[in-house]
């Protein structure tokens, strides 16, 4: 499991790789919070193109960051979910609060 970061304008792009479960969530969460603290972005985008597995622990991580960013007036988007990830995103009702885009470019434009 890995996570890497990139900043574009005022947006932090969080690229998730491998499997996001309860075990990897601690490391992922800490890495993201460190990056947010350091770069102080307005918006964040989760790039899920490299994510192969996610369960509800991953949903918890995403919602936690969502609360943090939106409480500062920022916005959150998700891009490039594989079908299996998209299903859990829908089942868990994330769809209603975090929009999903086809590419990072569209996400940045639309956020």
């Amino acid at each position: 499991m890995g996570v890497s970061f990139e900043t574009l304008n005022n947006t932090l792009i969080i690229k998730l790789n491998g499997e996001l479960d309860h075990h990897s969530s601690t490391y992922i969460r800490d890495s993201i919070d460190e990056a947010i603290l350091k770069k102080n972005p307005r918006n964040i985008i989760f790039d899920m193109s490299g994510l192969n597995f996610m369960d509800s622990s991953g949903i918890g991580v995403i919602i936690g960051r969502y609360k943090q960013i939106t409480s500062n007036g920022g916005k959150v988007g998700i891009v490039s979910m594989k079908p299996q990830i998209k299903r859990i995103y829908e089942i868990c009702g994330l769809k209603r609060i975090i929009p999903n885009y086809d590419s990072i470019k569209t996400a940045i434009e639309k956020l």
Partner: protein
Amino acid sequence: MRVDNEMKLEFLSKSQNESFARSVVAAFAAQLDPTIEEITEIKTAVSEAVTNAIIHGYEYQEGYVTIICRIIENTVEIEVIDKGKGIEDIEKARQPLYTSKPELERSGMGFTVMEAFMDQVDVISELGKGTTVIMKKTFKKEL
């Protein structure tokens, strides 16, 4: 009901064993020739139940998690068992968004995911004794 195949797996309640546990169940279920989608569903449901045993059942203390898998015709039956804390109100626990550990950023969606991905989910629990989650899924036969 004739059991066609059966296995039992016991492992320490360490979070690094979550991915191990779901791979084992997936490897066992593979004998029914499931689709990739069905395998993902089983892996996710097992991941939820095993994570709950570790976080809520044992509350990060050392204990053993047991998984029993049975193949009966084209149905897989999976029991995930812990000897931990137990659940006081099962109905409440199963409600979407309910979590007893919001401070750990739990989403409260574990049981909802298990129910969405498996055909049947039963929960047996006794306070101080532990919890057993029994999940069943029947694979569609190819025509």
